[in-house]
């Protein structure tokens, strides 16, 4: 699974829809008969799972959007790739993200 994720392009499953809920001020993932309340990071990653970007690219975009803080607590790029990979794998197992072998939007 790890290898597929490294070379593939994650895409939100067709059944899922992302929504920013103004009432609750939360990002949501809407699924048949299920609503998942997302934290900011999860929502940012899922929004980038559009079938055209690899985990590597997603991490770069994510990193660029973060304010660079010059502290030891700021994760290295490799650590972030590992975290995003883990998250995408979890989402894949839930069936909310699919890994495509070729870029499609």
């Amino acid at each position, binding site marked *: 699974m790890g290898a597929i994720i490294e070379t593939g392009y994650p895409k939100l499953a067709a059944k899922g829809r992302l929504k920013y809920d103004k009432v609750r001020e939360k990002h*949501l993932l*809407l699924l*048949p*008969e299920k*609503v998942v309340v997302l934290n900011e990071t999860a929502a940012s990653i899922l929004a980038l799972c559009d079938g055209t970007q690899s985990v590597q690219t997603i991490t770069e975009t994510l990193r660029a959007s973060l304010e660079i803080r010059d502290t030891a607590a700021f994760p290295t790029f490799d650590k972030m790739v590992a975290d995003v990979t883990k998250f995408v794998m979890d989402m894949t197992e839930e*069936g909310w993200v699919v890994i495509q072998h070729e870029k499609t939007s």
Partner: protein
Amino acid sequence: MKRQVEPPFSLLAELTHRCPLHCPYCSNPLEMALKEQELSTEDWCRVLTEAAEMGVVEVHFSGGEPLLFPNIEVLVEHANELEMYTNLITSGVGLTEEKVYELKEAGLANVQVSFQAADRELSNRIGGYKAFDHKRAIVEVIKEAGMHLSLNVVLHQLNLDQLDRIIQLAEEVGAERLELANTQYYNWALRNRDQLLPSREQIARAQKVYEAEKERLASKMEIIWVIPDYYAATPKPCMGGWGAIGLTVSPNGDVLPCPTAGMIKGLSFENVRHQSLSCIWYESDSFNRFRGEEWMPSPCRTCDLRHEDGGGCRCQAYALTGDATATDPACQWAPEHHLIEAAISGANDDMDRQEKPLVYRRHPSK
């Protein structure tokens, strides 16, 4: 102190009680709303707008058969513009290829089609209508249209033994989700309980099939098993809690905490023709009646499981004991648990089991 009430996530929009099928476990009330009493398209659009404004993000169009409601695609489109996730819960009857594409164009996210059994003969017998061949054909159209397909099958004595074939059918037609709903005994199902309630062995066999198939199909199809609560030691929580997660608007505009709550005499329900949805959700007596724990009877009040099951289902408590504040008799510690035990004992004793005819649900009539 005023209780903190969270906004609802989902709306079950029961557009009509009219239905071509006559399933003997129908969850619609015994007294159904007439066509003349149904809300109009304009009413529903207003209800959807109000729902979205108060935080509803998923809407399930149901019935009866929602396709008998004129202009359903207008409602789907409106809900979609409000950024709600739209789901159609249908028998499939009335769905044509043209309609499928119309609904897709309107933004429908998910189609849930009911099947009554795995084969034509039994499916048509249970539904009281020759619908199987059409259902079988239309789910393929839904898949061809690239839409997300769910299947729903209500399980009971007459079809539990063919569960493997039911799952096979769902796999064959490419359903992404299969809801195996063990019958919940309200309204028509309660009337037919003797004919529908399975034996303990039958449930155990079916549950084994479900567990094995769920594992086999893990990456391919999501399978949901709605617990047979007569055979569970603890009751099911009422829809995630009374007035906690979702609300139902019935065909005549009455707003209910769950689809069956209308059966509870002594509770009066507000109507969207006279009050805003938000006012009903937050302020009405019917929605506040069983929120929190103050209403709970003994033994629920001091039970460790009260946060999980909330005392069980209010409709079941009312249907079986006549008291909506009683502990759900499905609970092993309920004072009235003997009512469930008696029903189970009948279902497990061959000598007791008589060939009674099914009472099919009828059309709404004056």
